[in-house]
């Protein structure tokens, strides 16, 4: 089981006559049960790709396999249970909450997926606790929340439905630094402990580097790179084009590698790891 795109193309049609391809014959094969990161310049097609995973957008051509489900171009029917098994957190989460209160919003998914009322309430409660939403916030209407709180609520609403694959479009935007790290750690735990697949779009490599198993770089509707995050380090062309920044700790490590005769790394080191390595080298 995995996620496979076969020659998938998509073009936005409504607005202008001559739209370029937002997805241009995408071929992609990913294993599940891992933490996957997607990066790329604005407009490179990241959000478009994500929306194909749960059938919100239907490819013009090509087939997508997700878990044991097959998504064919419309008018083929969407596979049953697709929305439940693949949860999508939108890039703009305020567009995702539509109920009167956050609590009702958290219940919406579980109730739609045929959970009993008590089961749904338990799921919503668990998700709310997981994301650190207290009762005060749960009783509020989405427009009375700060954008960071809305973000957390939107993620909780998706988690409540218990998806096997969690897809998040720039989930750390509008969060403070410590919440960012916390969120990534939580998502990573979902991946490791619950065996879920996490797919995250981000512009900040630093945030996801320690957690990422596979990184995908998108460029103008195509897949420019798939691999381990540290393998990306020599592709300065891609890094520049995608507007990324190599994590500072790695740059420091690379700079010290020759003088301190450090070994080659197969991952991005955290600052703490770097400190330990340097300490060992000097003493």
């Amino acid at each position: 089981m995995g996620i496979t795109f076969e020659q998938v193309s998509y073009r936005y049609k409504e607005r202008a006559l001559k739209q370029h391809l937002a997805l241009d014959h995408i071929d992609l094969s990913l294993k599940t049960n891992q933490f996957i990161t997607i990066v790329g310049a604005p407009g490179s097609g990241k959000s478009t790709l994500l929306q194909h995973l749960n059938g919100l957008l239907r490819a013009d051509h090509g087939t997508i396999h997700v878990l044991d489900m097959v998504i064919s171009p419309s008018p083929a029917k969407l596979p049953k249970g697709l929305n439940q098994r693949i949860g999508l957190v939108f890039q703009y989460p305020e567009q995702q909450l539509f109920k009167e209160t956050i609590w009702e919003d958290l219940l919406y998914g579980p109730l739609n997926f045929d959970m009993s009322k008590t089961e749904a309430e338990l799921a919503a409660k668990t998700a709310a606790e997981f994301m650190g939403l207290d009762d005060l916030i749960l009783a509020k209407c989405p427009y009375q929340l700060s954008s960071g709180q809305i973000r957390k609520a939107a993620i909780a609403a998706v988690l409540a439905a218990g998806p096997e694959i969690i897809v998040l479009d720039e989930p750390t935007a509008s969060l403070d630094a410590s919440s960012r790290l916390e969120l990534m750690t939580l998502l990573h735990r979902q991946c490791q402990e619950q065996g879920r697949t996490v797919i995250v779009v981000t512009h900040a490599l630093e945030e996801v580097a320690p957690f990422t198993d596979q990184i995908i770089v998108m460029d103008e509707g195509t897949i420019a790179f798939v691999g381990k995050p540290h393998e990306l380090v020599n592709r300065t062309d891609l890094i520049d084009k995608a507007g990324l920044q190599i994590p500072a700790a790695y740059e420091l490590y690379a700079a010290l590698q020759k003088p301190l005769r450090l070994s080659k790394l197969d991952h991005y080191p955290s600052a703490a790891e770097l400190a330990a390595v340097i300490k060992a080298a000097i003493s």
Partner: protein
Amino acid sequence: MKHKLMLGRYIEGQSLLHRLDPRSKLAGMLCFIAAVFLINSYVTLFIGLVFTLIIIVLTKIPLSYYIRAIKPLIFLIAFITLFHIFFHTEGARMLKVGVFSIYSGGLEKGLVAAGRMTLFIAFASVLSFTTQPDRIANALGSFLRPLKRLGVPVERLTLMLSLSLRFIPTIFEEAERIWKAQVSRGFSLADQPLKEKAKRTIALLVPVTSSAFRRAESLADAMEARSYRLGASRSQYRQMLWKRSDTLFVLSFTLPICLITLFN
């Protein structure tokens, strides 16, 4: 939401019609309405159709866009056609179905009525596809300006109009977004009984309306923050410029009007 609503949308393009002054397009539209009102036979309908097709070709927008604009109204058109066919008893009797008889006059009336509706929609689409909403509003405003002396609040009307024209597509997009949000969390119309379908569609209206109000509120704030005042003199970003092609465009409408009058 498979068929995205096309009516009222602007489609970017570089065609002759895109470049015309919005006032001439609006004036042309009025002439066209007059011409379409005059249509009452197959021949004149044909003339109107040919003229509309020429204009459509000039927009360089594929016919499929126009067909998509007409689609949502197809039931209304069909209803009007059937109404005429069954309730007009002029001309020769062509067919008898149970208690109903179809007469040639009724058939012609029905088909002509359907044709007229279709032409209207097609032409309204030409206007909206090739003209940004705020430009339509500006053109209307400049037509209404003489009424200002009579105490008509022209500026207020124009602003209202331009805001509502501007908001129609936004509200559709909003509806689409909320629809997406609901669908991605298990909302589905398929496999539901008709009553449930209706209920769920209406349920969609609640968040759409409330978010439209919020948008209106923040728009008002944004305008105020940038010192918008009704009646204050203000320069326009896009100047309206009446060119020779505009005069020609409006004049070209005399052709269908004359032809249709002639063949009536």
